[in-house]
């Protein structure tokens, strides 16, 4: 009891997260997703692309825990490696999207009016394309690749980070501590990075957690359409697509391909919701 109490005293927010059933579930799912993706090569004895025709369409067995696909590849192994792709895309796209959005949002909020208007118009223009549509237009020209998927996702997510940063920046721009700093002769860069950034970054991190499901969904969606990762690299989306081709003969690939996708999106959504309630109750209403 004693240790428990000091734990919740030392990390009040973290222990609140653990006491919230949705938050705890989310955290467990997210940790499981990250660990299984990182340690995929250790967790499975099989290779994700090793073809074994003699074992195709096998049901679950002690060798192949979730059975095999149309080329005799181990489904579980491919799911684990598919998680690596999802994690990689999410990590890269979310961090770059967040950084660029943060930068542009601060510029829009702190800079001159015309620059603000220009950036907002650019954000509106990007938002005027339904997410998948812009991706399809770009990929028609560049050809499918994982890199393009990441680029498209970054372009798509910059406006939401940018907007929040801009609103936050506008909110504190005329606060006394900023005015004081400027009166003492601090340059724009110093004000932005030393004083504005620490104050706007909190909501962005929550948004990032909420954004991961969107990113993972777009990657899986484009791979599902055959416009993301190239075979034989496994992706949850392409596994679903393969499974759909053979849906009349066996339901397992389609079921197995969907579950990790759902668990991951659920995990990040639960976690994001819980974090938002803990760190910023005001944001609750605005959604």
């Amino acid at each position, binding site marked *: 009891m004693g240790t428990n109490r000091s734990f919740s005293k030392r990390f009040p927010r973290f222990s609140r997260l653990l006491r919230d059933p949705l938050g705890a579930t989310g955290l467990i799912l997210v940790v499981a997703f990250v660990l299984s993706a990182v340690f995929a090569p250790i967790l499975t004895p099989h290779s994700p692309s090793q073809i074994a025709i003699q074992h195709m369409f096998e049901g679950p067995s002690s060798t192949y825990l979730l059975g095999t696909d149309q080329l005799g590849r181990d489904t579980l192994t491919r799911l684990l490696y598919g998680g690596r792709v999802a994690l990689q895309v999410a990590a890269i796209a979310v961090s770059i999207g967040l950084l660029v959005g943060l930068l542009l949002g601060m510029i829009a909020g702190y800079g001159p009016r015309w620059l603000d208007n220009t950036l907002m118009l650019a954000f509106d223009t990007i938002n*005027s394309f339904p997410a998948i549509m812009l991706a399809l237009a770009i990929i*028609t020209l560049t050809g499918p690749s994982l890199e393009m998927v990441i680029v498209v996702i970054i372009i798509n997510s910059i406006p939401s980070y940018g907007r929040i940063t801009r609103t936050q920046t506008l909110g504190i721009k005329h606060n006394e501590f900023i005015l004081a700093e400027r009166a003492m002769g601090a340059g724009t860069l110093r004000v932005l990075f030393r004083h504005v950034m620490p104050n706007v970054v909190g909501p962005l991190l929550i948004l990032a957690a909420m954004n991961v499901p969107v990113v993972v969904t777009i990657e*899986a969606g484009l791979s599902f359409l055959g416009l993301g990762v190239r075979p034989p690299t496994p992706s949850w989306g392409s596994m679903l697509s393969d499974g759909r081709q053979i849906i009349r003969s066996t*339901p397992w690939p389609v*079921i197995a391909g969907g579950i990790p996708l759902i668990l991951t999106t659920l995990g990040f*959504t639960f976690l994001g919701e819980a974090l938002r309630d803990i760190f910023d109750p005001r944001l609750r209403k605005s959604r």
Partner: protein
Amino acid sequence: MLLYSLKRIGLALVIIFFAMLVLFSLIHLIPGDPVSIALGPRATAEIQAKYAERMGLNDPFIVQYLKFMWNALQGDLGSDVFTDRPVTQTVLSQMKFTVILAVAGLGWAALLGIPLGCLSAVQRNSFLDKFAGVLSVGTIAIPSFVVSIWALLFFAVMFKLFPVIGAGKSGDLLDQIWHLILPAFAIGLGWVGYLARIVRASMLEVMGENYIRAAKAYGLPNSVVVYRYALKVAILPTVTLLGVGMGNLLSGAVFAEIIFARPGVGKLIVDMVMTRNFPVVQGAVLLTSMLYVFMVTMTDLLAASLDPRVRKSI
């Protein structure tokens, strides 16, 4: 209201203008020669030269752009690389299927989600409220194409309750509705939860207002207070959301159309991406975006006409 409407419509036109600029420039923005980008690596030099000539790719950028805009204003978005059919015609013939699907998806989501949110707010912290809360977050998080495939698997392939593919026989309305149910269910599911949450939050806010307390104090029955007074105001935020929802569902429709092999803009675009038929993709994306911007603008105007406070926000 007039000033707000003009400003809002002006903004929409500017956004569409820039969207066109982006879509037009895309082929020039991607590094490399536009002709080989458009035709892919397998095209011969002869085909490339012909294509460049036909598409006017030998003209300077600004001439090409002005031509594109001028033609677009007259409803001409170019022609199919392979069949030479006008893009506008091709896209519009598919658009109706997509619009029907999106409207059906959003429709059932609104019919279920709005009352659910309302009930959750009225019976706050009840079992129903908590259940609906978890259900909402859950359905919002699940990708619509997973719902589509699983719906196809369970209701069409395993239990054979609904047809697997297609949009139904033309002219046979019942058959078409029959084919619409599963895809509309799949793309609308997430929006049930989303709308329920928004209505619940907005309802709780309104229920705390003074005029609601006054109405209660006058002894009006609870159902009258809730449905005649509170819901009328609480529904406003959802109006704006329905426009955004359309755009979201137009994206979701891409997957539903592929999975259920339905005709529609999404299926058209994906087919054309595979054959690198850029003019059709460009036209289809442009028309879809225009439809989306139109919907968002319309719902904003509707919200402004219902709620004077919105008008000041621009």
